[in-house]
């Protein structure tokens, strides 16, 4: 069996701008970012309500074994599976799962290591160890949602979410699964907070207030957030046959990666432009067909400039016409942002709007792009979205989402 079209039938989220899809939809409609900055304490970039409240439907016995990423992921995945109407009450080997993450397990790993060096090997806490692996959320989601189909987990700085989407599509297209739950999840754990300032210094970025201003003229660096985003992807035939509501079509992921050593920032607008062109070609779209571009912009002065150069090259004559949206202001920088941003893109298609970029401040006019800002969305002229992905790991991706 081979499948041509892969569609989105369910959405879920847990992020600072929405612990449910309707809340996130409202945030996008008003340009309201729930990301909180409290003085110097960048840890306040954390999700508002503590994820301990995310345990609906999970027994207390099971819940106490779930760490923060697992709880966020489960909270978001339940919403998506419910919306898609996937019946996972019976164990289903045709329904699979893939997770993308940059930091899952990092908080628990440090907690575990600390018990080892403080208390010694005989007192190291065995209940923490299973949650130290980056595929902890993946394992827990399959258990809690009874998904027995294809399963994997990606750990890629910056593009883990896009790699997860690509994997899910490949399993569906190959006929190995009817539906795949695709989850992107990251936590702002103690190690992440500890390393963030070290990296900013290494990159020569002074980022005193921790504010993330993608494409803003006062941008001074990226700040990691924590969030989960979930898509249910499905073959169109399977979705139609069971009468599911098709929310969007998801195109193939185009991707390349810079051959640079770890620790170096992306500096290849030509490569990003080539990736974007490849994604458009897959769908037979012209740049002028786009309703908007969802940018990877993270507030890093150099990275955003690089991405803007790539976008100017892609959009050529349309540069001042096609709106560019930077969505990371709603959730912070995430290795897995590709999934959550795709959720936001599908919501935008549903609403027929181009959402404002949040927390941009004043748009950097030198970038030569039509970056959205403010508190009101623009009408969506065309139901086609190009989403770029990039991050610290050197990966560059582009995927397309469109009205069904």
């Amino acid at each position, binding site marked *: 069996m081979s499948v041509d079209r892969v569609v989105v039938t369910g959405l879920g989220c847990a992020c600072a701008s929405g612990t449910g899809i309707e809340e996130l939809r409202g945030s996008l409609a008003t340009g309201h970012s729930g990301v909180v900055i409290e003085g110097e304490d960048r840890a306040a970039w954390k999700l508002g309500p503590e994820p301990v409240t995310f345990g609906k439907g999970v027994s207390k016995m099971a819940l106490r074994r779930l760490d923060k990423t697992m709880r966020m992921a489960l909270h978001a995945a339940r919403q998506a599976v419910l919306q898609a109407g996937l019946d996972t009450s019976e164990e289903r080997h045709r329904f699979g799962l893939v997770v993308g993450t940059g930091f899952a397990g990092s908080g628990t790993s440090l907690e*575990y290591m600390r018990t080892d060096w403080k208390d010694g090997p005989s007192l190291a806490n065995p209940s923490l*160890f299973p949650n130290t692996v*980056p595929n902890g959320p993946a394992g827990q989601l*399959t*258990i809690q949602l009874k998904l*027995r189909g294809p399963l994997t987990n990606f*750990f890629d700085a910056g593009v883990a979410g896009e790699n997860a989407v690509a994997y899910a599509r490949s399993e569906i297209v190959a006929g190995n699964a009817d539906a795949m739950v695709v989850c992107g999840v990251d936590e702002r754990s103690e190690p992440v907070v500890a390393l963030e300032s070290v990296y900013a210094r290494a990159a020569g970025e002074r980022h005193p207030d921790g504010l993330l201003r993608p494409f803003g003229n006062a941008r001074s660096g990226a700040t990691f957030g924590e969030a989960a985003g979930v898509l249910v992807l499905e073959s169109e035939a399977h979705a139609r046959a069971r009468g599911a509501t098709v929310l969007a079509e998801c195109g193939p992921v185009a991707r*390349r990666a810079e051959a*640079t050593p770890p620790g170096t920032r992306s500096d290849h607008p030509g490569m990003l432009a080539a990736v974007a062109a490849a994604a458009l070609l897959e769908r037979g779209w012209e740049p002028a067909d786009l309703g908007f571009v969802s940018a990877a912009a993270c507030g890093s002065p150099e990275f955003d400039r690089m991405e803007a150069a790539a976008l100017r090259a892609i959009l050529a004559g349309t540069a001042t016409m096609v709106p560019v949206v930077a969505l990371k202001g709603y959730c912070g920088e995430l290795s897995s942002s590709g999934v959550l941003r795709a959720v936001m893109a599908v919501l935008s298609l549903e609403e027929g709007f181009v959402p404002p970029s949040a927390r941009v401040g004043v748009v950097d006019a030198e970038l030569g792009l039509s970056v959205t800002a403010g508190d009101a969305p623009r009408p969506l002229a065309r139901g086609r979205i190009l989403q770029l992905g990039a991050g610290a790991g*050197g990966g560059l991706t582009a995927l397309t989402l469109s009205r069904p």
Partner: protein
Amino acid sequence: MKRVVVTGLGLVTPLGVDRDQSFSGLLAGEDGHRRVTLFSTAGYTTDRGGEIAVVPEPGLPRKHLRRMTRADRLGLVSAEQAVAQSGISDAGLAPHRVAVVMGAGAAGLHEAYEFFKAREQGGRSVLRHHFGEIQSSTSRWVAFRFGFEGPRACPSTACSSSLTAIGLGMRWIRSGEVEAAVVGGAESLSRLTFSGFNAVSALGPEPCSPFARHRRGMSLGEGGAALVLEGREHALARGAPVLAEILSFATSADAHHMTAPHPEGRGAAQVMRNCLDQAGLSPGQIGLVGAHGTATPANDKAECAALREVFGEAATGLPVVSHKSGVGHCLGAAGAVETAFAVMALGADTIPPNLRISDVDPECAPFDFPAAARPDAGLEYVLKESFGFGGSNAALILGRGDRS
């Protein structure tokens, strides 16, 4: 369907610093376990592990070497061997037509443990390594070393990570996304994993004895393994060595428990069956199973139950080997190390031995666990499988390189 072959192999294991040394050690029944010196093992169940005495230096300048983790070095050195054998870097391919997929489980956590411990205890804590890319840095070093700009990913599904990496590379070539891929994985011994497996009582007191009646748990190892994969037509056209063919790959979820396998090996049986179906093979055509075989009582029992279910009558006398008896459990690198051994076994038409297998567990019947190398085995197809924490199962089938 496009056929995908292996044209290069690289290995660094406790048995040797390259593929030939490692494989001849394996055939001779050498044991790579020794006293672990990388960190203190005081207080743990065992002081034995598959430690690599001297990690070879990759061919990069010192300024880069000092930023690499032990796992990065193991992965890069094995990739250098594989690329040299295949000649893929001189094959005239555009840089973006070569992907890099190196899987990892806990790679880099050896260095992370020391960093965070020193930081917390007020010691000298220099951030030399790229913890933000901690598992995915090996892929990136490989791409940097050879200038490969194709897509990159780091599957991280604990002990099935690098088998998944191989499968992904195969699929990306099959779909036409790339023409070639360097795939594999790397893992170093670390305090975190040593302590963790000790804490969950999975670590045995002696080097492990997979499938033996008196097996008492796993032993840990480390290593790097890389394979160069490419389209068969491409390989033949340029006269590259064709070492083996990868016929199929599948993943599945147990959806059962974070650390324990499903008692009947439900998910394990599913991946094996999917691999056979995809390859169009019957169980009787498989000449050797490269087992996961961790030597924990639960794994070996469940794995054999799955094999019995899938192989039926063909299970009687089917040769099964676990290389973990010789090199220890290399976690994220295990799948790639063991697949590299399987490719060499096919090439030499020789089944490598299991160590310490004189007394087979009756629950592991009715398979044949060779205790000595078996030449002229008439091998055509090998099934290789890996199972990870979180119920993350993966398997692939290899065929001889000279199949027409």
